[in-house]
């Protein structure tokens, strides 16, 4: 038995253009459509044929980027609006946590608002009365329930809204990114409430950007992208596919940012430990291009922590040089220098550098935690006078499955004596 059944659902919105394509009043009333039949160019397809089902008692997650159609899908399931074509079937009472406290009237007391809000969500007056204490207790508003809602803080407002909606005790609960309300303790209470829901065999549909929640709570997940289902099924698999796609998109975006600025003649900054973007130098030698290369030899901008990374520089000497040093440095997003080195520091003796050449800096295992890093590359004299210095002109992103803190991830392992039983590391 499916609690939610979505069959080939399409939803088309009309764009608001310069001219509103009104139909006549008559056609509006006779057909229930106010717009003329929407023309291709004026239409925006929020959902392009989405199908999925949620079995009763399961928790289902929908992930996707902003504007992918998640919230539209949720509204259609909630019954707010109808699909342009296709079918949405829901079995049982639905409660949607879309906007908490929508419909609260600021001038009247929390008590009256609880009653009206509860009745709007489909409870009878008696049902609200019998749950009233529970609602107030859950929202932790016992002392303020008779104050007008306009005096509430936004947290109190949200808590009350959440508490009413969750106490409607629906068969199907739709949640749209609302767990960011309240403090840590309240969030935990909400999660407990969800867990309780699941235990009692209720169905939960979760739309969220918190992938962590999806992998922890959901039995199945769906990835929506521009109104199309890109993947569905096992949450871990769906999330991985989604993350891969996000990484690819970021890769593209980072690659678009300027690789080598034409020629910015910025003066060398006084404090070399500070990360200021720019390029300077006398240009007897030049760094023509810089690439970041993965294990498989493909240029990229997103790397997994612990994977190899090679920085490949194409360089050119405009005259034969005997005094030259190649250098590389990595900066964190906060501008902290994570690591810097050059051929001179490492004891190399320069002999000759003529014409076009290639320099590689290969890191066998990228020991950085997840984050965005910028990269310096330089070629300069042994006394430090630069030929060509690129200061933080390149950006790479490091991703990680773990949520470690800090900057550096030294290669490590844990050991335990036999009296500690632990697994998963």
């Amino acid at each position: 038995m499916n609690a939610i059944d979505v069959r080939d659902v399409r939803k088309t919105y009309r764009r608001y253009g310069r001219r509103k394509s009104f139909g006549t009043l008559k056609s509006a009333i006779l057909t229930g459509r106010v717009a003329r039949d929407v023309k291709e160019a004026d239409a925006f397809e929020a959902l392009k044929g989405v199908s999925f089902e949620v079995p009763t008692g399961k928790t289902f997650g929908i992930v996707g980027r902003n504007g992918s159609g998640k919230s539209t899908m949720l509204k259609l399931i909630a019954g707010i609006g109808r699909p342009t074509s296709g079918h949405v079937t829901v079995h049982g009472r639905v409660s949607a946590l879309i906007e908490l406290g929508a419909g609260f009237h600021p001038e009247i007391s929390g008590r009256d608002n609880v009653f009206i809000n509860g009745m709007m969500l489909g409870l009878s007056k008696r049902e609200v009365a019998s749950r009233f204490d529970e609602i107030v207790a859950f929202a932790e508003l016992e002392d303020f329930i008779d104050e007008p809602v306009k005096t509430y803080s936004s947290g109190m407002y949200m808590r009350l809204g959440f508490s009413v909606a969750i106490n409607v005790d629906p068969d199907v609960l739709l949640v749209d990114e609302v767990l960011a309300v309240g403090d840590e303790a309240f969030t935990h209470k909400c999660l407990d409430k969800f867990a309780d829901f699941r235990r009692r065999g209720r169905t939960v549909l979760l739309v969220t950007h918190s992938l962590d929640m999806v992998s922890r709570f959901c039995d199945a997940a769906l990835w929506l992208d521009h109104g199309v289902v890109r993947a569905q099924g096992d949450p871990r698999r769906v999330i991985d596919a989604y993350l891969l796609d996000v990484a690819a998109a970021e890769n593209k975006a980072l690659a678009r940012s300027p690789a080598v600025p034409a020629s910015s003649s910025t003066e060398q900054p006084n404090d070399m430990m500070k990360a200021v973007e720019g390029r300077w130098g006398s240009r007897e030698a030049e760094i023509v291009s810089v690439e970041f290369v993965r294990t498989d030899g493909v240029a990229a901008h997103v790397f997994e922590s612990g994977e190899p990374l090679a920085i490949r520089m194409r360089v050119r000497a405009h005259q034969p040089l005997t005094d030259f040093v190649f250098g590389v440095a990595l900066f964190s997003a906060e501008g902290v220098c994570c690591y810097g080195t050059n051929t001179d520091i490492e004891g190399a003796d320069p002999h000759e550098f003529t014409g076009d050449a290639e320099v590689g800096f290969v890191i066998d295992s990228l020991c950085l935690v997840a984050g965005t890093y910028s990269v310096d590359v330089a070629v300069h004299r042994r006394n430090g006078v630069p030929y060509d210095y690129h200061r933080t002109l390149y950006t790479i992103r490091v991703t990680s499955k773990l949520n470690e803190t800090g900057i550096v991830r030294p290669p490590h392992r844990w050991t335990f004596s036999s009296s500690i039983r632990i697994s998963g590391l």
Partner: protein
Amino acid sequence: MLHSLKQLLRHRALVQSLVARELKARYRGSTLGLLWSFINPLLLLSIYTFVFTTVMPGARSAGIEPFSLFLFCGLLPWTWFSSSLLESSNSLIAGGNLIRKVLFPAEVLPIVAVFAGLVHFCLGLPILAAFFVYYRVPVPLTDLAWFPVIVLAQLLLTLGFALMLSALTVHFRDLRDLLANVLTLAFFLTPIIYPLSQAPAWARPFLNLNPFTTLAVSYQEVLAIPGPFEGWPRLLIFVVVSVLVFAIGYFVFDRLRDTLAEEV
């Protein structure tokens, strides 16, 4: 449509609570509070009485004494009618957040506006009664029996217009501004500040086309004008018309229901 109407009946407790909230919230923070419901019509009445007895006494026809009583019989229901329509035409747009975010029958909003108006109307009735006592005008009980029928007819008529206007205003926002002016015109085209008999003979058929004319005349005949109520056949026909207007209004609303969440 019948299904929707049934749904609506299930929500009458919600309508009730929302009307109560409307009244509570309306006067929250004002010193006189609910007293305003009495003072407002009284002030309005004083203004009109002042204009027609002191500023331009010649404009009012002879034979209707006391004038303020006659005026009140038409003014009180008109205030209910016009304020309900103005409020309900804006109700869906004002409650847009609800319609977009919460699944609940949207027709509740205009209906609440009309019933809140009805409550204000009822609060005005004791003042009207006080006038009768003050002027020692007797109201025959047989005439008074018609009073609830007139109120019911007005309620249905107003609900019909309110539903239709509220849904259409979402799509054609111009209606809000248009409505205010149409109502002003309609006020003068209704025998409220003058008796129907004073209008020129050629204009009377047109005045009778105005749906509120029958209502105003009925109120006046039942309450202010001595003698038995003779307009009852016309009133009964009007009740049928009101039911039709309500049905049409609800039909229009029901038809546009699905578009509301997107357009509001």
